[in-house]
């Protein structure tokens, strides 16, 4: 089970409160987390990564265990503490804008 903390606007869009808990089928990677989020919450499709290019959105970061995972390959395994549910994946929007 993977725990995910979505930013405010995506919680609103997905109509969830608090953390999201996901069961992943295959290897527990960031890409698999995004896949699972999009499957369970269709309004999130295209919000974390571009629908057509597949590139993650530049104003978003993916943190876990006090590390920035944003630039790791999407198929890289998540840290053990995330994979066992001890730590969440934090999806954070850039602090910017008016």
């Amino acid at each position, binding site marked *: 089970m993977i725990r995910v903390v979505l930013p*405010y*606007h995506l919680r609103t869009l997905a109509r969830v409160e608090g953390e999201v808990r996901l069961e992943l089928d295959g290897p527990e990677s960031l890409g698999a987390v995004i896949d699972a989020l999009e499957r369970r919450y269709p309004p999130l499709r*295209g*919000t974390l990564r571009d629908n057509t290019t597949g590139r993650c959105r530049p104003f978003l970061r993916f943190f876990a265990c006090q590390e920035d995972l944003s630039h790791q390959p999407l198929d890289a395994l998540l840290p053990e503490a995330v994979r066992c549910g001890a730590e969440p994946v934090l999806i954070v929007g850039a602090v910017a*804008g008016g």
Partner: protein
Amino acid sequence: MSRVRVLVGTRKGAFILTADGSRRNWDVDGPHFGGWEIYHLKGSPAEPNRIYASQSSAWFGQLIQRSDDGGLSWRAVGNEFAYEDEAATHQGYDGTPHPFEFKRVWHLEPTPTDPDTIYAGVEDAALFRSTDGGLTWQELAGLRRQGSGERWQPGAGGLCLHTVLLDRDRITVAISAAGAFRSDDGGRNWRPINRGLRSDFLPAPEAEIGHCVHRIAAHPARPQTLYMQKHWDVMRSDDAGESWYEVSGNLPSDFGFAIEVHAHEPETVYVIPIQSDSEHYPPGGALRVWRSRTGGHEWEPLTSGLPQRNCYVNVLRAAMAVDSLEPCGVYLGTTGGQLYASTDSGDHWEAIMRDLPPVLSVEVQTLS
């Protein structure tokens, strides 16, 4: 009794105002999608409770929202806007080739007869169509392939397709800063319709491509007659865009963004002159709508109820609309967050909201 529903898109959400036919007391619902940019909302003429909204943000990209109950509830529909030809390029600001990349939806245009068929004008400039209520979108790629797409260059607001006019099989669109284009066969084949436009910022001022068209408006009963607010110049065509001539006349400035046509008088046109392209505020700090009852050339300022001192807001291209009651109502939203309405064709105005986020678009539905 008739009712009016005003759909307001802002930098930080959508607002829906409703009133009865007297248009005196307004109920305000919103913000919907708080914190998101809502470039445009538009209701289906065929099924007015079907409303589409373009929701976007720099963080999370583009969503399309759809309501089937007049804006009481919404659901996200399709947001995959895939260009047909990924290798195609347009000119960047520096003149070098750039691939077309989807950024956002500027304009949503439901068809008059089918609530499930809707067009979307997007940035980078392209036209998409959905025939399943917004679930899936297909590009009308003939527009970009008609021969000039690689020469299109963005205006300061981006390479955006911001205007879509429908008249049976005829589709007219406008792109900043490429110009106006028309299809007469439902969107398969396209050609530029910019003859008569002159833009002094171009190396060849009367070039076929490159004009910064800000908005085109037409009266539904007279679709051959088009009115255009260009970057500079207010233009008119009497032959569906085959040729254009200037009708700026006595306007204090012929720079502006919004243009609209009276619901019952096809020769009555409204524009909002802006000081210049370097100063996006009204001349003299006075917000004035200028009305022509002669299809252009002769214009009169409408000032009653509008701020005439120290006013430095702008009115963006999609932020003026009319209702079809009698007398015709005219509505405009400002970048300062005011929403003004006139219930007498523009003679008198009143702020029906004063403190919205910057207004990006205004549409009006007249409901029976």
